[in-house]
């Protein structure tokens, strides 16, 4: 496989030609924030947090789905990118009811961590305060739509890692919602295998184990990677 050389934030980086900017940056120790990206499932380029600038290209490019190109000069954290990223987070916080103080994922939440690391300390947009349900019909797991950021990590995990196709997005635009089967209560789903991988995939407190209380929802993200490497590479890395 041919290697490509490019610079990321001024640093010379070598990468395999099928690598994405995100992978090349990660290998070089450069952190690009992501939310909808999850190791092991197909990327969708939806959250727009990983947008980067490339010299000579007008548009911002999503690092998670953009392949490296020889000679590119990539910038991952310009003032402008930082501002856009903070706005993405503001929009997410204003969209649904993300009240960290009473959230099961408080302290273990990717959205919260991103807000802290990107310095998004207040939301300038009016909160939409939608009235959304919490589905507690499943005997092991719960789904709180108030905390959902529609990253679809759970959906992709369910389809591509577990293969059950239980979860999907219904509706569109701001009315989008994660559903199980024909919008049945999760507990009544005839396709769910109760594997729990979606819960491991969720970045926020939207999917959680029944019985956990505020700030208790920690998840073993490594477990998902374990399954993916086992499946794809026949390597069981414990």
């Amino acid at each position, binding site marked *: 496989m041919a290697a490509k050389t490019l610079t990321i934030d001024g640093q010379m980086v070598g990468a395999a030609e099928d690598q994405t900017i995100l992978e090349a940056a990660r290998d070089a120790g450069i952190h690009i924030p992501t939310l909808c990206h999850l190791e092991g499932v197909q990327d969708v380029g939806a959250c*727009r947090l990983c947008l980067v600038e490339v010299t000579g290209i007008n548009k911002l490019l999503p690092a998670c789905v953009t392949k490296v190109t020889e000679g590119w000069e990539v910038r991952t954290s310009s003032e402008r990118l930082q501002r856009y990223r903070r706005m993405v987070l503001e929009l997410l916080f204003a969209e649904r009811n993300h009240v960290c103080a009473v959230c099961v994922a408080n302290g273990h939440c990717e959205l919260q961590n991103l807000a802290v690391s990107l310095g998004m300390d207040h939301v300038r*947009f*009016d909160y939409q305060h939608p009235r959304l349900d919490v589905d507690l019909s499943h005997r092991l797991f719960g789904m709180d739509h108030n905390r959902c950021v529609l990253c679809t990590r759970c959906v992709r995990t369910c389809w591509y890692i577990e293969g059950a196709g239980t979860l999907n*997005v219904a509706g*569109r635009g*701001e009315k989008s919602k994660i559903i199980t089967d024909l919008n049945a209560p999760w507990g009544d789903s005839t396709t769910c295998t109760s594997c729990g991988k979606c819960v491991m995939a969720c970045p926020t407190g939207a999917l959680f184990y029944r019985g956990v209380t505020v700030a208790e929802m920690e998840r073993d993200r490594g477990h998902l990677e374990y399954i993916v490497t086992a499946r794809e590479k026949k390597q069981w890395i414990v």
Partner: protein
Amino acid sequence: MVLEELVQIKEQELASRKKFTLRCCLAAGCVSSNAQAVKDALDRAVKEAGLEKEVEVRGVGCMRLCCEGPLVAVDPAEVLFEKVAPADCDALVATLKGVPSQLKRGDLTAPFFKHQLSIVLENCGLVDPDRIESYIAADGYLALRNVLREMTPQEVVQLVTRSGLRGRGGAGYPTGLKWATVAKTTSSRKFVICNADEGDPGAFMDRSVLESDPHRVIEGMIIAAYAVGADQGFIYVRAEYPLAIQRLQTAIRQAKQYGLLGSGVFESPFNFNIEIRIGAGAFVCGEETALMASIEGRRGQPRPRPPFPAESGLWGHPTLINNVETFANIPPIALKGAEWFAGIGTERSKGTKVFALAGKITNTGLIEVPMGTPLRTIVEEMGGGAPEGGQIKAVQTGGPSGGCIPASQLDTPVDYESLAKLGSIMGSGGMIVMDQTTNMVDVARFFMEFCMDESCGKCVPCRAGTVQMHHLLRKVMDRKATSRDLAKLEELCDMVKNTSLCGLGQTAPNPVLSTLRYFRNEYLELLQPAPKQPAAVAPATGIF
């Protein structure tokens, strides 16, 4: 089908023409003004007058001046009757025998007709869309025959490239370049898609073409398929256009019967089939990756490009997507040559453009003008200006992705670059005229509501950003916004434009940006004085 048969059909068709032809518009605009009843009444009146041998009543497609429908044209007298009612038909038929009548006649020498140059629409209103013979009589499918017999696929691509034709769907990407990219790929399967998901509110060009001259689009698609090496085509058409769907189905069936579709087109080794796919009410499906997802039976959500459809499209195969008007330009280019086409229009925008003229304007309807025609000629001369002595305030082009051009800029020539310079876009061809009673902030809010409802919800800036922009615009309209809100709105416009995944989000701020640019006063007049203390939007502790 071979050339001799084609010529024979044409001659038969021409020989069967009667002394007079009454062309009755049966496109959707006139049909909704009761045109089908008018056609039936004409049939009856001709029969009762005993003129069946001399007069043919032909249902045709759009005759342009929709606001005066139902329209009936008389050949060879070159008379156009307007607002014809079924009760008028006896008198109308009587005029053929020289009996004078009080019926309303249109002035075919008026600027509305005089300034038109018909290439795409040359058959619209003349041929019977339900009869392939009628199209063949107008030299239909002759271009296809010539291409298949006399040109290699590479030559066809070169022809289109030389013509300078650019995509008529909005962005104006050079058509020849797109074709060349698909032609160069070495996949075993390739597809051609006709994008007939005309979603811009206020646009009805493609609908009119499909309803009036469906074979033209099919012929263009077959030529494209030959040029790029595709064997399967899809026409993705909106469910809101039942008449267009019906006429396309008829046209495809007839083309198959004549051996113009299927295996061995024109008895050449080239095979091509077309299937119709009906949309289900999602504006975003006009975006090409979303459209392909929809053809594949999935949620019509766009995906990041690259890979572009030309490399990896439908089911992963190279796919050529052009819109209706682009395909309709192909047969005349093949017939009359690239140089002829390149001789029309401006330096960088060749040929003509069809516009749907609507809104606060005297003459609403369909027009086709050479690229570079000044907006003023279109709205003031052809459109007749605002009705009832009103003043034109702005012209909106490009629908929810476009912008409002103020009256002061009416001397701008209509071409891709000039419109982009004004902060609007050519778009697919909707042109809505607004007068002094139109509130421009409300127009921006209207389009933002549209984008908000039509956002697929996949990427955050478009899904949540359009909601917030709409909320802010609503606040301005309700006189509850401050200058701080306006600043937020502008910041959001910039962010959504630059960070959204697909064209819908990237262009959603355009109507706001263009009205802010030209009609900022209207925003400022609605603002509240800003409070001295910044409003506590949300206590930071409430979040985390």
